[in-house]
Every structure is written in structure tokens, then in C-alpha cells.
């Protein structure tokens, strides 16, 4: 699969021969090596942001209902992502999924091009994290690569039809599908069980959320492996058409697990608390819906984004429970984030590609400016930190007492 999107022998000769064959380190070889090293570093950082961005997909609801303590939840998710990254053998397929016309008559994917796309994806992932928005990391990566491709080869490089049918329409359908499934599951849960039995759903939640995590690990780490392998092939360090090296698989697995363990508490708060209050039965319903929808979509040939499915499930369960309210303002903010993900990541990717066009100086400027923005985002995030301790489940006794007092007052008044 990978060979199909590698720009063929031509890219191999542009970077490869000068990198390896000459036998002496001319400046061009240094350029290529440096770019490939930067791509690997950025790809692993993207993998890390992917991890903490998507912890919420699996773990927001069990944390919200108290089925798992926050620390335990992220630890389980991290381990399952690590395991999942090694489990999948359909490694690193097309990273651009045919969005960009590659090969003859299209774009040559070079390490520089990937570098620019990654910068766009990373920066947008961090901005959405700062805002607490669950947004698709794949869309950010697509956006960044599209932007870079347009600068490199013009608007014709992007296959608009594929963009609409494989990315945009599924993005609209995903939350509705998951929402419907989650709504019906919630109705069943509240129809069948009585109130005092519903705490039992917490145990079920552990299994369903773990399954979402494992599925995530088998999918998302593969993207980064694909990016790194592509850069290695394009730079001439690996034969065309070969799969990822073991160290690439290991590094990607560790990066996504570390990112997952670091939590992404802002997005967990949005998904678990801000959209709607979630009871254990709803958490189980939402996770069952997320799991079922993702597994069905990956195996029946209609790919849907995990993030959008998970968000749709939470909204669906909010509609499904009587007396629960969905905060549509929050849901709207998330939807807006989805709409602008590809364009904004694209613009950043395009700018990065434009600057990188000036050669080594441009690449250095790209990375320096990107690094500075990352630093600023982390500093901004420190102003209102959200951390694990804020999700500690309240002691049941503490929760019940004030409620009773209120009732008594109302009765006497």
C-alpha cells in the first residue's frame, strides 16, 4: 500500500542518491538528512498530541461517571494504545488517503512537504486542545498536507471529489449516526433497568471504554508510522515500497501512549462534563454506541472519525435520558471546530510550505516559529490549568446530604 503513494523512483533519486551514494557529505545530503530527522521528530510530537487529544474519546465518560478514577483511566488507555500500536499489521497505509494526487502528473511527496503538513496539524491540534475542543487529528493532518500540497503544486493537486466523499460527508454523518445509536441504547437502558440497579453499568463501562482505546491504538499510531516511513523512503534511507522499521513502530507506540497518559484533561472536561451530565447508564450507552459505530465503520468500508463518533454518542445519550439537557452552545462550538479544522490546518501548512520553499533557512525558520507558538500555547494553558484532581469523583455521602436538606426546606416553605 505504501508504495502506491510514494512518489516513485524519482523522489528516491532527488534525495536518495545525493544522500547516500555520493559517499561524502555535501550540503544537499545534510539538508535531506536534517529534514528527515526533523520530520521524524515532528511526526512523533504529532503522535503525542494525537494521543492526548483522543484520550477523551474513550475515557471522558468513565471518568465523568466515576467508573474509573482519572489516573487509572488514562493509564488503561495508555497501555491499550501502546499494545494496539504493535497489534495492527495493516500498518501505515495511505496517509493522505488519495486526497492528494500523488505520483506522475501530481505532487511529489518530499520530506519538506510532509514537514509543512505536520506543522499545520500539530499547531491546530494544540489550539483545539487549549480551547478544549475534541477535533479530529486525522482531519488536522489532512488539512496540513492539503495546504502544503496547494503551495507546492497548485490547487489541482488536491482531489476535491475524494475530499468531499471521504472526509467531508463522513464528518457530517458520523455524529448523527453515533448520536442515533447512543440515543436508542440510552432509551433501552432506562427502559429496562430501575434506578437502584444502574450503578452496575459502571463495571460495563470499563470494558467498553477499554475497547475504544484499543481500537484507537490500532488505528491512530499507524498514521504516524506511515508519515515517518514515507519521509524515510522519500529521503532515500529505506527502499521504496518497504514497511515501517521496528524502531519506527516502537517510537510511535511510545509517543501515542505517553500522549494518552498525559491526559488532555481539557477535552475530557468538555466531552465528559460540559455537553451533558452523564450517569453510568448513559456512559455505558455512549461507549457501546461509540464502539459499535467505529467497529462497524472500519470493517464495513465507510470510515468515520473516532472523535466525531464519540462526541455524537455523548450528545445522543444526553437527548436520550429524560431530564438531561444538552448544552447546545458547547456542541455548537465543537461543530464549529470541526468545520474550521481542515481550512485552518491547511492555511498553517501552506504558510509553512511557503517558508520551507526558501531552503534550509526556511526549514529552520519554520521549526523555530512553530516551536515558539507551541511554547506560547503551553504558557497560555498554564493560566487556567485543568488537571486530573478536578475529576475526582465526589464522595457519595457528601453528595446526598445537601440534596436532602434542600428538600426539607422546600417542604417547610
Amino acid at each position, binding site marked *: 500500500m505504501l508504495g502506491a503513494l510514494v512518489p516513485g523512483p524519482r523522489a528516491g533519486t532527488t534525495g536518495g542518491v545525493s544522500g547516500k551514494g555520493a559517499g561524502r557529505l555535501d550540503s544537499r545530503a545534510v539538508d535531506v538528512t536534517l529534514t528527515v530527522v526533523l520530520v521524524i521528530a515532528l511526526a512523533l510530537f504529532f503522535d503525542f498530541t494525537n494521543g492526548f487529544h483522543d484520550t477523551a474519546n474513550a475515557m471522558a465518560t468513565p471518568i465523568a461517571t466515576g467508573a474509573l478514577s482519572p489516573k487509572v483511566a488514562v493509564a488503561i488507555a495508555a497501555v491499550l494504545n501502546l499494545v494496539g500500536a504493535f497489534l495492527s499489521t495493516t500498518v501505515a497505509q495511505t496517509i493522505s488517503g488519495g486526497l492528494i494526487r500523488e505520483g506522475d502528473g501530481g505532487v511529489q511527496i518530499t520530506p519538506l512537504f510532509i514537514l509543512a503538513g505536520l506543522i499545520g496539524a500539530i499547531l491546530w491540534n494544540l489550539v483545539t486542545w487549549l480551547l478544549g475542543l475534541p477535533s479530529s487529528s486525522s482531519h488536522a493532518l489532512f488539512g496540513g498536507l492539503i495546504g502544503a500540497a496547494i503551495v507546492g503544486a497548485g490547487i489541482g493537486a488536491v482531489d476535491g471529489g475524494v475530499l468531499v466523499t471521504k472526509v467531508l460527508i463522513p464528518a457530517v454523518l458520523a455524529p448523527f449516526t453515533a448520536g442515533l445509536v447512543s440515543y436508542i*441504547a440510552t432509551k433501552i437502558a432506562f427502559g429496562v433497568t430501575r434506578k437502584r440497579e444502574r450503578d452496575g453499568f459502571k463495571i460495563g463501562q470499563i470494558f467498553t471504554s477499554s475497547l475504544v482505546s484499543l481500537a484507537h491504538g490500532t488505528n491512530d499510531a499507524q498514521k504516524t508510522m506511515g508519515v515517518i516511513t514515507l519521509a524515510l523512503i522519500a529521503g532515500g534511507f529505506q527502499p521504496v515500497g518497504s514497511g515501517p522499521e521496528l524502531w519506527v513502530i516502537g517510537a510511535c507506540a511510545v509517543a501515542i501512549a505517553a500522549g494518552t497518559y498525559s491526559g488532555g484533561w481539557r477535552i475530557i472536561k468538555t466531552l465528559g462534563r460540559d455537553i451533558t451530565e452523564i450517569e453510568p447508564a448513559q456512559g455505558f450507552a455512549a461507549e457501546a454506541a461509540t464502539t459499535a459505530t467505529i467497529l462497524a465503520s472500519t470493517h464495513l468500508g465507510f470510515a468515520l472519525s473516532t472523535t466525531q463518533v464519540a462526541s455524537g454518542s455523548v450528545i445522543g445519550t444526553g437527548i436520550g435520558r429524560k431530564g438531561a439537557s444538552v448544552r447546545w452552545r458547547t456542541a455548537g462550538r465543537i461543530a464549529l471546530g470541526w468545520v474550521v479544522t481542515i481550512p485552518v490546518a491547511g492555511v498553517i501548512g501552506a504558510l509553512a510550505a511557503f517558508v520551507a520553499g526558501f531552503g534550509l533557512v526556511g526549514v529552520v525558520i519554520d521549526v523555530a516559529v512553530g516551536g515558539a507558538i507551541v511554547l506560547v500555547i503551553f504558557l497560555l494553558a498554564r493560566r487556567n490549568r485543568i488537571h486530573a484532581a478536578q475529576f475526582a469523583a465526589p464522595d457519595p455521602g457528601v453528595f446526598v446530604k445537601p440534596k436532602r436538606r434542600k428538600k426539607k426546606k422546600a417542604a417547610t416553605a
Partner: protein
Amino acid sequence: MSIDWLAFVTVVVAALVAASALMALFAGGLRLGDGTERWRRPVSVLMFGLCGVLVLAGIWLVVPVLHPGL
């Protein structure tokens, strides 16, 4: 530029059936586990067991090594 609507409908139906089945079994297990009649408990355990089977089926689908032909 065509959308595979059949695939989409299949996904929706499959997801609906799977999630509903899992939920019905688990909720049924909880409901039947809560009662005094003697027949309730084994049925409840059976339902949880079937839930476990569904989760195992999920793992089977997630891990590609387990289903090379799919």
C-alpha cells in the same frame, strides 16, 4: 465522486443492532440480578456472559492478527 450509501446504511444498521444488543443484554442482566425468585440469577449471569462474548467479538474485530482474511 460517489458516496457509497449502501455501505453507510450497513454501518448504521450494524452499529444499531450491536449496540442495542449489548445494551439490552447488560441492562437485562442488571434487572434480573435484582430480585428474589430463584430463576432470575442464572438468567442474569447468562446475559452478562453473552455481553462478554460480544466484547470478545469486538476484540476479535479490533485486532487484525485474529482475522487475517477479513
